């Protein structure tokens, strides 16, 4: 594990400041939201709904500042390893972006086209993005799991996933 941070650090640069920024923005959002709450003082609830948000906003803002200082001084978070993770090469956006695209396609399609179609698109697209090139086999598997889960949820659990375009056929 110890060999990873050195090679990864050069590639990462100071992008970790983005995390500090995110924490800071989150802190400000929580703070502004809490200030905007209007609550009359009540005997039965002296703490009110604002106290915890203030504490959390404070925690986030302090962490944002400290993290920024830590990163500028050369500190860095240790990227997470794992069985299938190889940190020796930089982030491979050519895999991630199509994967996200498949996910977004599912979101857009699910209510209109129905789960069977959108789930098939999701599985097939994800497998393709991740490097599988068995187009037909992937498609059959994708269709099979989508249809099976549709009926499994409908018949087994009583949860009606949307049928969408295939309504009447399924």
């Amino acid at each position: 594990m110890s060999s990873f941070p050195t090679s990864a650090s050069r590639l990462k640069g100071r992008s970790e400041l983005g995390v500090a920024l995110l924490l800071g923005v989150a802190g400000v959002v929580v703070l502004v939201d809490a200030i905007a709450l209007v609550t009359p003082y009540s005997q039965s609830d002296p703490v009110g709904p604002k106290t915890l948000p203030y504490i959390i906003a404070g925690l986030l803002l302090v962490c944002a500042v400290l993290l920024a200082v830590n990163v500028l001084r050369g500190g860095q978070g240790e990227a997470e390893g794992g069985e299938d993770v190889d940190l020796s090469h930089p982030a491979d956006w050519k895999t991630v972006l199509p994967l996200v695209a498949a996910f977004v396609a599912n979101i857009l399609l699910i209510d209109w086209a129905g789960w069977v179609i959108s789930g098939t698109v999701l599985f097939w697209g994800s497998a393709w993005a991740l490097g599988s090139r068995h187009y037909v086999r992937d498609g059959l598997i994708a269709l099979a799991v989508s249809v099976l889960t549709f009926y499994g949820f409908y018949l087994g659990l009583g949860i009606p996933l949307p049928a969408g375009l295939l309504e009447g056929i399924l």
Partner: protein
Amino acid sequence: MDVFSSLMDGFATALTPMNLLYAVIGVILGSAVGVLPGLGPAMTIALLLPVTYVLEPTSAFIMFAGIYYGGMYGGSTTSILLNTPGESSSVVTAIEGNKMAKAGRAAQALATAAIGSFVAGTIGTALLAVFAPIVVEFAVSLGSPSYFAIMVLALLAVTAVLGSSRLRGFASLGLGLAIGLVGMDSVTGQRRLTFGQPLLADGLDIVVVAVAIFAVGEALWVAAHMRRTPLHVIPVGRPWMGKQDWKRSWKPWLRGTAFGFPFGALPAGGAEIPTFLSYVTEKRLSKHPEEFGKGAIEGVAGPEAANNAAAAGTMTPLLALGLPTNATAAVMLAAFVQFGIQPGPLLFANEGPLVWALIASLFIGNFLLLLINLPLAPMWAKILQLPRPYLYAGILFFATLGAYSVNLQAFDLILLLVLGALGFMMRRFGLPVLPLILGVILGPRIEGQLRKSLQLSAGDPAGLLSEPIAVGIYVILAIILAFPLLLKLWRRNRPAALQAGVPATRSGESEPTDASGSTSHGSHRATTGGDGDG
């Protein structure tokens, strides 16, 4: 009712054919997800939550218990056969276990892990059955101020003790607490952080948050850093042990159990510290110290037992206090809430049959794991060869399905993607995931106890200190938070003592600026502590 007769009733419930079937499904599913990369017991239970709505709560929890123990077991299989532990708790197992496997002793390593897990799990569950009611008896007398203190202790201790950077832990905790704020305030009905979006008024569903952070974040992260070279899995036959192996294993099993259970039961528990302690102890006590680093069986037996005993220990605060200390327990707590069961000390009184059936099913699950996993080890090794595109496409597919089926609205999938991106970022920049999940789940409960405490004292902050237990906990908390600081001062004065705290050096060695960095953590912790008291 005494423990024994309650437990027997529990066995009667858990041994009905239907519940036994759920236990079997649980342990097989748990082992599979434990073996498979990218999946873990916490995520699996989160994914199954919407599906298990239709089940009896008892059956659902019997299955969850199987998944929990099975996942622990599966993790050790991976670390022995692959040398790339999936969970931090099996890191230590990989040290000797993989060396053993490479030396052709994979069968013995798996066997000592399996039998050790069984021994430790059984003893640990027995301790749970004995101690949980005692804790409950003590806990029912506690009021809101003490609960508030206990929960704050759990949150801050998990954040401060685990992981290599406390600052990043606290950042993660802050994000989790903020996510927990979203939605209607339970007392006044005010909407917090909903941005006028009515779909956010009910808050973020914990299933969506957990699945996003665990599953979607993991899938995206792996996709970005997919290992191009195939993993080398060491082939294995049926696990077995010779006489010599038994002789060298049984003491480490018992010692590992003794380390694991208490650490698991502590609010800042977790399996990392006891597995590490067990490893160091076995190395010191071994008659074959020269074998350590080359595949000593004691180095697998002890930590594996510690790992499983810690898993059993974790159930004690969960069942007796409603306090989760690891990710799986946190998701189980969410499951209790979803089934309309109020976790906490009244759980044993109100849901006695369920709790005892759950404890009985932990015994059963343990036994099933031994029974199933010794012959199935070669199959688990094969599962590791599953083509990765299918594995991760499947994870995304089921993550989507699980999150969507909660409310049947596409909006939840947008949340899933956004929070998945957050999970990705956290993995990339070393923000630990556990504080976030605990923050989401415990945040609202902490707020409830805080408000109740101050309601009793009519707004006087001194009300938080009105119970002696609460005061004691704040003292412990102060010690935990100040400890690394003291350690650093001490070390600066006496550099020779460096190797005294090996787990701490990991955070210390990363860069020289860290020392000054954590001085400033100290001041920041002082502020949060002050806020908590006020």
